[in-house]
């Protein structure tokens, strides 16, 4: 599904006189359909940056990101160009960020239904599907019409997850998706991820919580000072 080769990221900060900061370097791995790869490493080791380089939010300094796209065939996302990345993001690749950035003034159910609408679903059906998913994530029906900007951190995070999984992407990038969730919600999220995985979605996830990682990861990749180690969770 995904093959990452020798990926590196360096930030050149001009306002600090061209200072160069290493995000990570030399990251390579393969990810098969339905596989979950956990990324571990101390704070600042570059875990989030790896996900952002795959998603296209960061431009890699070097390396390749080969994605087996259904629509475009095998593409190197590191070089594919903006239109190709946008098309892959539209339905094939999802991303759940560590920090929430909710869209202002849109009801929770609409935030979640939006990817379905973009894919051409009928409005009523999309909203019902969104409501069912929110229900499952324990967001009570009375909140479905409210703006997520007023929600608690944990509620916002679940909105974010719902939005990312509703179209069942083929590749899902997860940056601490359960960080602000209570035990029960965390288990629900893991359950949803497992189901997706069984249907073939490949995932790369960063988890703070060892137990959550062990509950879902098939493999882990440890980032440490540029080197990297494969292993079992």
């Amino acid at each position, binding site marked *: 599904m995904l093959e990452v080769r020798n990926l590196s990221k360096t930030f*050149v900060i001009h306002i600090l006189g061209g200072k160069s900061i290493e995000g990570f370097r030399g990251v390579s791995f393969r990810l098969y359909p339905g596989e979950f790869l956990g990324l571990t490493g101390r704070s600042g080791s570059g875990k989030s940056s790896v996900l952002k380089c795959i998603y296209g939010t960061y431009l890699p300094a070097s390396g390749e990101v080969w994605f087996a796209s259904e629509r475009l065939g095998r593409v190197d996302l590191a070089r594919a160009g903006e239109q190709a990345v*946008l098309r892959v993001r539209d339905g094939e690749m999802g991303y759940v960020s560590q920090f929430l950035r909710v869209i202002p003034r849109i009801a929770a159910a609409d935030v979640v239904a939006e990817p379905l609408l973009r894919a051409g679903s009928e409005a009523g059906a999309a909203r019902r599907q969104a409501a069912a998913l929110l229900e499952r994530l324990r967001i009570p029906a009375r909140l479905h019409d409210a703006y997520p900007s007023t929600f608690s951190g944990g509620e916002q995070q679940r909105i974010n997850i719902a939005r990312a999984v509703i179209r069942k992407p083929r590749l899902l990038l997860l940056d601490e998706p359960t960080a602000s969730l209570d035990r029960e919600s965390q288990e629900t999220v893991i359950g949803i991820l497992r189901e997706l995985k069984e249907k073939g979605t490949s995932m790369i996830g960063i988890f703070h919580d060892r137990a959550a990682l062990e509950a879902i990861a098939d493999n882990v990749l440890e980032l440490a000072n540029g080197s990297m180690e494969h292993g079992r969770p």
Partner: protein
Amino acid sequence: MKPLLEIHGLTKLFGSGCGHCLPGGVSPEEGNRCGRCGTVVGCGDVSLMVYPGEVLGVVGESGSGKSTLVRLIHFELDATAGEIYLNNGKEDAARENLLMQSPFRRRQIRSRHMGIVYQNPWLGLRMQVSSGGNIAEKLLAAGWRNVSEIRKRAAFLLERTEIPVNRMDEPPANFSGGMQQRVQIAKALSNNPQVLLLDEVTTGLDLSVQARVLDLIRNLQRELAVAMIVVSHDLGVIRLLCQRTIVMRHGRVVESGLTDQVLEDPRHEYTQLLVSSQL
């Protein structure tokens, strides 16, 4: 997918230039104004594409050339050099550089296929003419002839932009700033444009009014899938509306990319400064 709007090497020099700065204007290192003759690079060698249904953001400090770019695309200014193509969806249509077309043909293309909303509603509306009349004017230019159809379309658009239809015969001069922007949007969309140009449309409005205008634009965009170029110095607006963004400085494009990439991993020194001063 073919781009809807294609721009190559678009250049606008304000001033006649001299041996030092011609043909393209002073080099970016010198800024945008020629030290010898005072010629200013409004837009220098700008190339960009807009794809169907896409929203492209344009950011940059004041004076960086954003509005010049928009006005060149809208044929309000004559370009010094460059090419603009608008793909009308017909595969066999001749590829014509619009900048080489006659003024009449350019006006026709503008009336039929473009819409614009200015920061200052005085530029986009005739303040003493009724709101319905403002829209009718644009429809007439686009080739509409049937008066009752025109009135129906105007009423529909005003309703869609949340202007009470019973105020359609009032001139925009009677309206609040937010309402005037919404009349401008109604007018700009009246001909079902292929490209909608928005130049700082929320700047200067109260925050709550800004939010309402932005929501309207976002909803209309989703509903009509119209391609847009959104100029704003507010990175929040850009993040909300645009998939891709270009950054301008001294009339030049210094950086372009996916909006989240430009905002989270800016590479050019100027973009880094812009982003770090706003986020």
